[in-house]
């Protein structure tokens, strides 16, 4: 009954101050909502393990992540084969390669699907059986075996309209290769990540007999007794052993002891953004801490306001536990209601993120199947635990703090002056904590925001308006790749010929001005390889200059607004077998050939393995600068070199069209032109140039929106929090101000005293904040680049805002006290 009275009393107190109550609940809701949202995001995208019925985590073993190209690297098939057979760490191992397959009848419309070429044990590995037909069998890998497919539920429903007799039917893939559908997997199954369909890997990938150019990734379960760290340690030894066994041609495979790596499956898919997500996690934790401090400070101020009432209650003999409970009840109300609102906020945020993710991968469909966000049981458990933690931090600590005060003195003189020194110390710690947290959150939020904005609005050196892009993939059955045979050059020319035929067909249409083909168009791709300049080679290969390299069609630079600034563009001469010509961009010419002697100079690739050491390329022209890759990626390249595609004949190219009129008309024209030239050629990722450029930044942009929300929340919490704690700090010293003034202290000395104190707090807080921010930036900088201007704005601008806020929060309440007569301050209660 008495507890019921306490509950009523606490509710009445909160109702009496609706603005205070609303503010604190809002702060708690935002803090908890962001925490739950971020936890759900990171847990489902990164932290939780992929598990199947046997509850064993799934790992990926593959080659070391390539930071210069921001790409995962597959491993050589024989190394994974030996790893499985020669070590005792692996319980189950399956192989896969992600690919693209076009399905459709010859002459009809081809449809692109994400195909996973896999080992047949993928299905037993997951324990999930086909809903119709069968899965892949070991015999499907054998040379000469019938081409078979297992398709996913969505493909069955979407492409084959749910035909009941689809199993056993033969369809054409990649042109006119016949393949038999043998099974349909249940809805939602897309293992290893994005599979619409599954095709068997060839026998040489499954059971290689020698080292060859078969590259695969593997999904594995470790033996029960093996931890991830133990597996890493075994891989380290294995890598050394592989390194020792490699001949000169393969020595590059193990770089400084690094080759095979093992990562949890989810992390392996997000290595590029791992640092950013970890930074996000820290920022959100800091925001939660900020929210805790703010609410704690508000409740502490409230406890201080009621300190005399507490003293009276103690004098009346109320047990201390009961007093603590009374003070806790307010916190319980605030945190619980805030928790419920936080749950709703997080759910709303995850819904938005799901739609953003669907949007990002709408065109290419490369979204891993587990990227579907929801609040699960562990999220709810975290929320409850965090609410309890917040109750303790925001309620129990102020309550116990206040109970340590000298209540006898309080009752005797009834002033705040009797509050213990501990309270003043606590306030100082609160101010410094606010400064540190605000500094970190504002710096991180501003860095990500500015970088994303800059990347999305950057000048990549090309015209993007009225430009349409797509990826073309030639069917292997029609465009063979017969490497190391007498047909190799002939095959290359045939492939290149298709692209030029398509260009001619396109430019015959009224609405197409021009078309260009590139392996990766500016704004995408990006990577760096070292090159040495003839006569100027560095002693160590990686001390040479580096550039991004792309294959390019000739004569169409103006499609993208690019131009030749010196020398010439590629022409028919460069299509000759063995022709070694290269274009460089202006930046390379300016920085490495300042005498204007770029054209005519020779360069060649520089690598550790000294591969192709005699392949000198002659620079035949200098072209205007473009930028490959997102400006936020560390692999982005300002130095670009271009090779002629004519004597290379890539089987996959990007195309960019310059069109006039409506975009949709241009899309139709492209599809029609491809079908006219060769209807078996697959086309996918059809999108405008602007969409193409934004794609690499979309995920970061969506995370940056979270950072933006974090930034706004942080700015709000920081501004209100800093003002509250700093003002509280001044308020607690109101009597001291009165005493000092009574003793004759001039106003400016008192102001100076508070400014000096605030300055010390600022120095400590801002230095610590910048230090933590630098550490977080270093976490992200392995895969992301931040411009100097961005860093300056964030590292100088944000601390300056905080300095301004703190000084304002110190000056305003100090001035307010000083404006009044000293007698007011002396008798302040």
């Amino acid at each position, binding site marked *: 009954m008495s507890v019921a009275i306490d509950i009523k009393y606490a509710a009445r107190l909160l109702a009496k101050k609706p603005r205070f109550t609303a503010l604190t609940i809002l702060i708690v809701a935002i803090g908890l909502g962001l925490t739950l949202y971020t936890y759900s995001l990171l847990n489902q995208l990164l932290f939780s393990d992929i598990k199947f019925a046997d509850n064993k985590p799934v790992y990926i073993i593959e080659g070391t992540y390539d930071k210069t190209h921001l790409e995962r690297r597959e491993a050589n098939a024989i190394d994974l084969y030996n790893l499985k057979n020669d070590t005792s760490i692996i319980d189950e191992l399956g192989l896969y390669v992600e690919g693209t397959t076009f399905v459709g009848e010859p002459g009809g419309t081809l449809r692109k699907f994400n195909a996973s070429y896999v080992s047949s044990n993928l299905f037993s590995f997951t324990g999930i059986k086909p809903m119709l037909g069968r899965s892949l069998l070991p015999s499907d890998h054998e040379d000469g075996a019938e081409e078979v497919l297992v398709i996913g539920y969505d493909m069955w429903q979407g492409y084959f309209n749910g035909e009941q007799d689809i199993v056993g039917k033969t369809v054409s893939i990649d042109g006119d290769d016949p393949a038999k559908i043998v099974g349909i997997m249940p809805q939602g199954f897309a293992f290893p990540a994005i599979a619409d369909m599954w095709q068997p890997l060839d026998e040489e990938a499954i059971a290689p007999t020698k080292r060859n150019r078969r590259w695969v990734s593997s999904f594995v379960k470790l033996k029960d007794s093996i931890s991830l760290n133990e597996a890493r340690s075994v891989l380290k030894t294995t890598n050394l052993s592989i390194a020792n066994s490699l001949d000169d041609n393969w020595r590059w495979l193990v770089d400084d002891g690094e080759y095979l790596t093992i990562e949890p499956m989810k992390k392996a898919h997000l290595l590029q953004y791992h640092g950013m997500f970890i930074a996000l996690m820290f920022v959100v934790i800091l925001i939660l801490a900020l929210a805790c401090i703010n609410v704690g400070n508000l409740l502490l101020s409230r406890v201080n306001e009621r300190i005399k009432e507490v003293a009276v209650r103690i004098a009346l003999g109320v047990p201390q536990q009961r007093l603590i409970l009374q003070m806790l009840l307010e916190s319980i109300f605030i945190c619980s209601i805030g928790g419920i609102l936080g749950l709703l906020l997080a759910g709303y945020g995850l819904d938005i993120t799901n739609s953003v993710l669907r949007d990002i991968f709408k065109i290419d469909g490369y979204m891993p199947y587990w990227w579907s966000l929801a609040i699960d049981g562990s999220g709810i458990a975290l929320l409850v635990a965090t609410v309890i933690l917040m109750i303790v931090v925001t309620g129990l600590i102020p309550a116990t703090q206040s109970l340590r005060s000298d209540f006898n003195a309080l009752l005797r*003189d009834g002033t705040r002056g009797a509050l213990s*020194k501990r309270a003043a110390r606590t306030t100082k710690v609160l101010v410094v904590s606010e400064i540190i947290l605000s500094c970190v959150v504002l710096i991180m939020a501003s860095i990500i925001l500015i970088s994303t904005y800059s990347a999305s609005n950057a000048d990549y050196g090309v015209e993007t308006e009225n430009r349409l892009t797509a990826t073309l993939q030639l069917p292997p059955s029609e465009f063979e790749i017969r490497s190391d045979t007498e047909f190799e050059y002939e095959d290359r020319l045939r492939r290149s010929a298709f692209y030029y035929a398509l260009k001619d067909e396109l430019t015959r249409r009224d609405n197409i001005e021009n078309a260009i083909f590139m392996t990766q168009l500016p704004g995408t791709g990006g990577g760096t390889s070292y090159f040495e300049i003839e006569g100027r080679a560095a002693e160590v290969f990686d001390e040479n200059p580096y550039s991004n390299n792309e294959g390019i069609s000739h004569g169409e630079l103006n499609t993208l607004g690019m131009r030749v600034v010196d020398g010439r563009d590629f022409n028919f001469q460069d299509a000759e077998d063995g022709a070694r010509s290269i274009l460089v961009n202006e930046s390379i010419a300016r920085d490495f050939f300042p005498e204007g002697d770029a054209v005519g100079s020779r360069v060649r690739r520089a690598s550790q393995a000294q591969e192709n050491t005699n392949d000198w390329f002659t620079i035949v022209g200098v072209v205007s600068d473009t930028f490959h890759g997102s400006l936020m990626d560390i692999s982005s390249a300002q130095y670009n070199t271009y090779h002629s595609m004519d004597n290379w004949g890539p089987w996959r190219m990007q195309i960019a069209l310059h069109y006039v009129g409506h975009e949709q008309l241009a899309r139709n024209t492209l599809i029609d032109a491809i079908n006219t030239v060769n209807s078996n050629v697959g086309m996918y990722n059809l999108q405008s140039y602007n969409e193409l450029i934004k794609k690499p930044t979309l995920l970061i942009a969506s995370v940056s929106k979270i950072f933006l929300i974090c930034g706004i929340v942080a700015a709000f919490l920081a501004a209100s929090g800093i003002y509250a704690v700093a003002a509280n700090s001044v308020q607690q010293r109101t009597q001291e101000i009165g005493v000092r003034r*009574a003793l004759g202290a001039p106003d400016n000395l008192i102001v100076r005293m508070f400014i000096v104190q605030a300055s010390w707090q600022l120095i400590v807080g801002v230095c610590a904040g910048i230090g933590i921010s630098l550490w977080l930036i270093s976490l992200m900088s392995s895969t992301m680049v931040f411009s100097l201007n961005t860093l300056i704005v964030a590292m100088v601008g944000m601390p300056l805002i905080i300095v301004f806020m703190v000084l304002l929060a110190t000056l305003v309440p100090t001035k307010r006290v000083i404006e009044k007569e*000293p007698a007011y301050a002396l008798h302040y209660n």
Partner: protein
Amino acid sequence: MSIDATSTNPNAEKVNDLPIVQLIGINKVFYADDLETHALNDVNLQITKGEYISITGPSGCGKSTLLSLLGLLDTATGGEYTLAGHNTHGLSREERAAIRNKEIGFVFQAFNLISDLSVAENIELPLTYRNDISKALRQSMVEDALQKVDMQHRANHYPSQLSGGQQQRVAVARAIAGNPSLILADEPTGNLDSKNAAVVMSLLDQLHQQGATICMVTHDPKSALRAQRTIEIFDGKIVVDQINEVTQAIAV
């Protein structure tokens, strides 16, 4: 009926010829919402150098308000106040602060020592607000003050390490360190037990005997009688202003 303090105290001028404090027709009105409270109403008072005055009266009668006005901690709504020859009317905040610093020493009921400063630093604090005192002189003045209250051995302690009586002795030392013209004590024994109260009262007696001008607000009739002169306030007016015969006898 208003009582002219100077006229009811014919002996006042005999104590000393130099007025330190002169109040003429002082009023103080507090405004809260629509409520006007007349804390002081037409107060006239003269305090001469070397005088020891106690101000008494019931709670809320205006004693502390009067002391605040005397200490330039507050401004009067009307009337004239001259302190040590300075007409305080129209003084700027900085000028008032300078006068408080040089001419007035405060002793508060709640001691009001600054908890972050040591005993010596607390005493030194008002001296640091003066530009005309060297550091060496300041230290010497602090030592003198400590000696007068017999607290030299506690110079480096912090207020929280002292008893109430000791804290009040430090507060007295702080009040006298700068040789002010007037010492204002607001219930100086209000927070002390009788033994410590007696020590503090003796200290004030000694200071008075050494020539200090003291004005003390007190509830305690015994303490009031230790002053030469007692002023009683009621409803914001001085209703009694008399020479304490007992004190005169003690002094003789």
